[in-house]
């Protein structure tokens, strides 16, 4: 039982990273009906910035600066590469975001250099004992960060005019425009938010040991998460993120007992298996709106 709960704890940590990433995907999707494949690159950019900044200022100052910087980067990318394409086929835009991903990742990766780097987080491999269960501090921190960021987002969308405008625009773009909402601002804000979220997610993905530029692969797990949660549901993204994190960790822990013949860690494909099973029953994910894609 302890092993199981520890796996759940581990899973909540990774799940929080997935949730943060997935929130970024969903925000962009809600704004412009596009899946942005540039999220992994923004995540990597965030990690690189933190790892450099943490050397000069401390970790706590480095994170907000890096998040802001990546948000700005995402803003710039939206303006240069995405805005001109608004109204074109969504898959063309999606492929452009993939191009952005390649470029940003190469540039960010170049700064990682030859040797492994560290984000200089204060948690390392320390554990904290929660009700008799050892939980890595970094996982607790990730969970707390996800809850705080999620709460702030919730408040942002509920109480600020631009947040409300973004929700309105997601529901009915033309009607929102008729109210004086500038759709350009909505797009830009959504990209900035997604960029910032990716950076935060990156910081927590990179805790606990040295990293190299291949860490961006973590971000791919957010794709099944958003499908599972429903492409247009923020709450769904959070729940599906945590769910998949936990299932992944549990499978990784018990795989050797259940199916000893499998050599390769099945963790990475678990999100996709769960996603497919759910979609067979609910074609629009757990919380997605039906007919998201217009017939």
């Amino acid at each position, binding site marked *: 039982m302890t*092993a199981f709960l520890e*796996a759940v704890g*581990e899973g909540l940590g*990774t799940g929080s990273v997935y949730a943060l990433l997935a929130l970024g995907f969903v925000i962009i999707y809600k704004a412009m009906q596009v899946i942005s494949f540039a999220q992994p690159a923004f995540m990597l950019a965030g990690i690189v910035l933190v790892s450099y900044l943490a050397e000069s200022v401390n970790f706590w100052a480095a994170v907000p600066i890096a998040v802001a910087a990546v948000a700005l980067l995402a803003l710039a990318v939206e303006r240069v590469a995405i805005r001109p394409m608004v109204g074109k086929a969504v898959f063309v835009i999606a492929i452009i975001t993939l191009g952005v991903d390649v470029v940003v990742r190469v540039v960010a*990766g170049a700064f990682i250099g*030859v*040797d*492994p*780097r*560290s984000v200089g987080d204060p948690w*390392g*491999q*320390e*554990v904290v004992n929660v009700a008799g269960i*050892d939980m*890595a501090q970094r996982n607790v921190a990730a969970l707390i960060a996800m809850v705080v960021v999620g709460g702030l987002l919730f408040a942002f969308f509920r109480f600020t005019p631009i947040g409300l405008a973004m929700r309105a625009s997601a529901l009915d773009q033309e009607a929102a425009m008729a109210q004086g909402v500038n759709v350009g601002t909505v797009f830009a804000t959504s990209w900035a938010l997604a960029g910032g979220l990716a950076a935060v997610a990156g910081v927590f*993905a*990179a*805790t*606990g*040991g*040295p*990293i*190299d*530029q*291949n*860490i961006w*692969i*973590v971000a791919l797990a957010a794709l099944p998460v958003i499908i599972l949660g429903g492409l247009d549901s923020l709450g769904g993204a959070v729940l599906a993120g945590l769910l998949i994190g936990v299932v992944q*960790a549990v499978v*990784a*822990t018990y*795989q*050797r007992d259940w199916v000893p013949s499998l*050599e*390769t*860690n099945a*963790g990475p494909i678990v999100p996709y298996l769960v996603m497919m099973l759910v979609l067979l029953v609910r074609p629009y994910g757990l919380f997605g709106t039906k007919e998201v894609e217009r017939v």
Partner: protein
Amino acid sequence: MKRTATRLGVALAVASLLMTGCGRDDDNGSGAAPGVTDEPCPEAVDKEKGCIYLGVLSDFTGVFKGVGVPFSEGQKAFWKKVNEDGGIGDYEVDVTKYAKDSAYDPDKHAQLFGEIQDDILAVAQSLGTAHTNAILGDAEKEDIVIAPASLASSWQLVDNVLEVGSNYCGDAMNSVDYAVDELGAKGVAVAHFPGDYGDDAAVGAKVAAEARGIDFTDVPSEPGAADKQASVVAGILKADPDVVLVATGPIEMASIVGGLAQKGFTGKIIGSIPTWNIALLGEKKLVPALQALYLQATSFQTWEADTPGYEAMRAAAGETPPSDWYALGYGSGYVMQAVIEKAIEDDDLTREGMLNAAKSLDGVESEGMLPEGAANYAGDPNDAVIRETAFNAVDPTTASGVKQEVAPFVGPTAKDHDFSESACYEQY
């Protein structure tokens, strides 16, 4: 319609003119061997000398860029020194022009080899075991000699591969023997990458564990940081071994050591040679655990070794940050130099001549850069294979971050093992 036809005719004529204008260059130069020219090298010291081009297929951006980059720099430094000292015969040697980045991807490795194979005399560096295997077939067809940046147990079986030290399989055997004899271990676990490199170490450990009658647990790992290694750590803890062998990259090793330390593991963790990277010392929180638990199994000396070769290398390195990979790249040059010299001596500076020279080589004067008995390709593979292993421990005060802790030794398992039948990894 008629007009279309006329237009097309014109287009065809233009096209054929264009094509004959920039025709295909079918002749192979002056008849000299591929990769050997009378023209000086691009960065020649002496413009009067010809140039020998050696290919480099390394990892500059992948999982083992921490190995590939310093290794290549070491090689460049070695050949720069050779060229400055007058080259080899009438030639200087270039390892820059055909240096390619395969990013630790065997397919890209094979593809890049295809691109450069008509322009090189030999391959001065082929990083990766599976990667070198991917080009071995083509290389054998064309008699191309390859110096691998890999220490698999299969190289002594192949004529055109110039291995330079002990292999992962033998190192793993010695590690298990050491664990049993010196640490009293009752069980051993191996965490390793899938593929030929990781499997080689896993098989070595398995053979030794069976020979010594202790428990053996196989825990496959995969490239990736802490997240990916969590299940590996869980798997190791479940087996509860006294000693853990690790055959991964440095990041994976560090995550495994960190994870095990966090759970209170107190045995030893012995990593294959590629698991160490000095940058790990930057992980302040991890250093104590590395110092307490980790050993690097290798047959090479460390950066500060007191031999003439290392001294010359340190002088050649200048400002370059110390790295044992740099030293290894530099040291591997001695073998290739010896082969080229022999080929010139035999008056047969062709691929075939290189291969014959390599086959007849029974050792090399490496000024202490390479292990005792290295580069013996003439003898029986089982006799010529290097079986000794030393252990390095982490020591932040040294230049390359590690210091020899256990002097080179040969354990009973490796001593009796017949390496001439097949590569260890093939038995996985």
